[in-house]
């Protein structure tokens, strides 16, 4: 157990009804005992059993600071694997700060960000994938995000990776068997069977790497760029969608010279809206820079909202289309006609027809009057193209995992090609070892002793 006892406010910052302050480390009980007076005279925090709660008071030199509930977890049966005390106190910022200060005076150290999790990891309470998921859980802001982090923490990814590792182990064993034990009287896997195994491994790896797109979308939000001519009302729309005054809204052309981003939740998923500088021909160098930035943002977005001022559609539209449409070939482009309240139904129809060649997703809205924005939200959710997230689905959200899995996938694809090319086993093994190396970064590597053990267990070796 770590000698240094750490403490921190475990609940979200700010005032709430209740806050939780957590202590962890070898001195957690003695330190907590210094400030805590149990309500029952015969009770003591030091002798209290694990996983029980004790009501009492936090005192500073016999002055009562707050009435609290102390919950005890004795090592190793705690989140960190160390002795842990959690004080549930009243949620005022003043009380929280006061208790923390008393704890620091009593010998605690302020926990660094993520230190509780790091200790849990160091004490073998969770593997790396789980530890990283906890960090995600803390940062999770949407329902889907939360579900994902929970499922990772409970070992969903670890389990799937474990299965993958077992498959790989068996595959490697079959290859090594024909290399090291070719003189033995055992049945060697034929190329067809090996090919089948490599294809299956490839499939599993691809499923995981593909899930990163979803995982990434869930974690970081689905990127949606709002583009259009200056003064089409992009900033107003953004503020509507975010329900706050983020962008500077004015009727001066080119007010938004920089890119403004923020996230909001629609149907449980996070969307990251990106307001961009208006696109127009300009000599202003700074504005030109902003427009270049807009093109970059279009590249990064999954969905592009092209906002058009329905009251002043002119021949300039074609110039715009030539700049926007080619940049949105592999994404969803939605044409939004703003200020629908200012034009007639017939005019709406004409506009709709006019833009038919550019996009099949066209919608009349009024950002200012809040018209049709619910329809827009529903459309966004639909076009996000996210598969339904089931509880059992394993989704990769961690970039480190994604990179390792992608490298492993590339290696296994080379094995696949090698099998088709009739390569001898030791060359296949070169790529297989690379695959093991990358997968090993997240699952723990496969040692040669493990491979040999697997061979001896399944094949009768030894003349």
């Amino acid at each position, binding site marked *: 157990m770590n000698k240094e006892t750490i403490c921190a406010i475990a609940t979200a910052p700010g005032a709430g009804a209740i806050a939780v302050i957590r202590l962890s480390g070898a001195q957690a009980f003695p330190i907590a005992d210094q400030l805590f007076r149990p309500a029952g005279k015969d009770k003591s925090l030091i002798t209290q059993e694990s996983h029980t709660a004790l009501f009492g008071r936090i005192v500073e030199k016999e002055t009562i600071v707050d009435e609290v509930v102390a919950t005890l977890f004795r090592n190793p049966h705690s989140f960190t694997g160390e002795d842990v005390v959690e004080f549930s106190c009243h949620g005022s910022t003043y009380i929280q700060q006061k208790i923390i200060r008393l704890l620091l005076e009593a010998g605690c150290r302020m926990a660094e960000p993520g230190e509780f999790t790091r200790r849990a990891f160091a004490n073998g309470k969770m593997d790396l994938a789980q530890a990283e998921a906890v960090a995600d859980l803390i940062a999770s802001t949407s329902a889907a995000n939360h579900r994902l982090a929970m499922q990772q923490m409970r070992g969903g990814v670890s389990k799937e990776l474990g299965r993958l590792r077992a498959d790989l182990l068996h595959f490697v064993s079959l290859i090594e068997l024909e*290399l090291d034990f070719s003189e033995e009287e055992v049945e060697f896997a034929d190329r067809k069977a090996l090919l089948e195994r490599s294809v299956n491994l490839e499939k599993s790896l691809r499923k995981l790497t593909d899930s990163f797109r979803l995982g990434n979308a869930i974690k970081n939000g689905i990127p949606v760029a709002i583009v259009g001519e200056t003064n089409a009302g992009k900033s107003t729309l953004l503020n509507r969608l975010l329900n706050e005054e983020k962008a500077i809204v004015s009727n001066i052309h080119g007010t938004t010279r920089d890119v403004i981003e923020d996230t909001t939740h629609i149907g449980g998923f996070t969307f990251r809206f990106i307001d961009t500088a208006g696109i127009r021909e300009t000599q202003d160098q700074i504005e030109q820079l902003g427009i270049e930035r807009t093109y970059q943002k279009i590249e990064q977005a999954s969905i592009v909202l092209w906002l058009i001022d329905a009251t002043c559609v002119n021949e300039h539209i074609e110039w715009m289309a030539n700049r926007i449409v080619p940049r949105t070939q592999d994404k969803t482009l939605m044409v939004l006609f703003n200020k629908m309240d200012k034009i007639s139904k017939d005019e709406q129809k004409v506009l709709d027809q006019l833009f038919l060649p550019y996009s099949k997703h066209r919608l009349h809205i009024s950002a200012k009057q809040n018209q049709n924005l619910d329809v827009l939200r529903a459309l966004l959710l639909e076009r996000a193209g996210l598969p339904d997230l089931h509880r059992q689905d394993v989704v990769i959200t961690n970039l480190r995992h994604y990179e390792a899995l992608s490298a492993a996938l590339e290696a296994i694809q080379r094995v696949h090609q090698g099998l088709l090319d009739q390569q001898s086993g030791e060359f296949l093994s070169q790529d297989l070892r690379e695959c093991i190396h990358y997968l090993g970064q997240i699952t723990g590597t496969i040692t040669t002793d493990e491979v040999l053990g697997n061979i001896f267990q399944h094949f009768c070796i030894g*003349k």
Partner: protein
Amino acid sequence: MNFSYDVIVIGAGHAGCEAAAASAHMGAKTLLITMDMNKFAQMSCNPAIGGIAKGQIVREIDALGGYTGIVTDRTAIQFRMLNRSKGPAMWSPRSQSDRMRFSEEWRNMLEQTDRVDFWQDTVRQLTVEAGKVTGVLTNMNVHFKANSVILTAGTFLNGLMHVGKTQMAGGRISEPASYGLTEQLRELGFTTDRMKTGTPVRIDGRSVHFEEMEEQQGENDFHKFSFLDYKPRPLTQRNCWICYTNETVHEILRNGLPDSPLYNGQIQSIGPRYCPSIETKIITFAEKTAHQLFLEPEGENTVEYYLNGFSSSLPLEIQLAALKTIPCFRDVRIFRPGYAIEYDFFDPTQLMHTLETKRIQNLFFAGQVNGTTGYEEAAGQGMIAGINAAIKCQGGEAFTLKRDEAYIGVLIDDLVTKGVDEPYRMFTSRAEHRILLRQDDADMRLTEKAYAMGLATQERYDLMKSKRERINHLIDFCTNYSIKAKYINPALEQLGTAPLKQGVRLIDLLARPQLTFENLKPHIQALAVELDSIQDRKEEIMEAAEIKIKYQGYIEREKGIAEKISRLDNIRIAGKFDYNSIQSLSIEARQKLTRINPETIGQASRIPGISPNDINTLLILMGR
């Protein structure tokens, strides 16, 4: 008569003999002590040298100037290159040898080696002063002094043999065990444990119905073990024979299990999983109705045969009854039954990469006492211990081999880093860079190093150099020689490969799997002239050049990977950390790092139970 030496080697098995030869070649005055001077490098088990991964080790020993390869070539009665259907890194030479001639040849070679003396006796005690070994005391109460001592006692330390319920003390059949050394070393603080191995029945060939067996012939091309000695094999070549067990055999063996020392609790020690007794095979793989057996001759002329695959410690009458139900053995007579043997070994993590013990200075362990099996593994360790024991006398930098340089390097690094939990045998899969550890180029990898130390002779060095020059010459020729499409296309079609659209260099053509020097030679006049200009070792040079051309991509890639990994092996950490005080390491990591005290980050990363996170922690602490 002198009683003071630079180096004393205890035991004249495969490890001891190579250790004595290496130490003497390095210039050290060397004494080899053995219980029986008629049993030098005795093949206690299978009368064969080499095999997959083991054959590569023998080529390495030879490239370093050792004797095992030469002795094997001179006494071979059957030679085969195993794994020919795989790529060249997997090709592994294997040879049956005449067991008695093998031992005799070894003795001849050692007798002709300067600075090697012999003493026939049993060592009962080491003399140790202030944590440093100073000599040995023998059963005849002779005290030899030495600067370094190498212990290569094989299976002799407290050796105990089992045939059914019969137990016999001894280090090998009809040979006494050795007592006292284990006890002394344990008192000095060494960790020791027991291992078990076994050997099969020896059969009288005059009682075997060979006509009912499958014949297995050897090969007779240019391949062999030594890079020296370019002569045809002197002994008459013999065949091996194959037959199979059947369910009746298994039934009889099964009925004998209550009397099997392996299954009635008489033997507790761990045996090798890859070399199971026949009784273990029928239990572990009960669904198999027949097991293959090889009947291998023990010599050029003898009628004694070794029954490979029938290792057993069942009672004699069970072994015999079971054998008789195999048709070709219905009239069998045997010379002795199979038996199991238990013996002491020392946890090899108590050694450094030089095979010197961490606990007692100038004391080296090599061979089966380190928990390995196999003549080749023992001989490889013997070389390294012999070299370093001599260096300890003369001063100079310790000599070790890296994992990407030699199987011997893999072997020793595995032993001292991971320890053993069963008798350790080499497999190619243990080497992460096996594409670089081929049998064809062991001389290119190692001879220069050995020559620099005075270990390899001038002759050996010159042979290596001229071979390398000739290979490079041939490759240069192929690089510079271009062929026109219309000129070669008829030949290509004839050889079953796609015709060319435009001219190419010969080297690019040779990269095609269907094409070789041999089959292109009749079609390219200049190539024929170039090949015919090779005077000596023509086939060896052609093969080596062809491997370098065909597998260049793989070899280069493997070199790149090895280089990346070896960066960790160049970061020295021995003595830099008090692991127990590093909180961010797991408790298991702290204990293991403290115990093994790895020399480099690379070695630390190979200790079982040390995670990549532990390694990152160490790297961070080193400021990397």
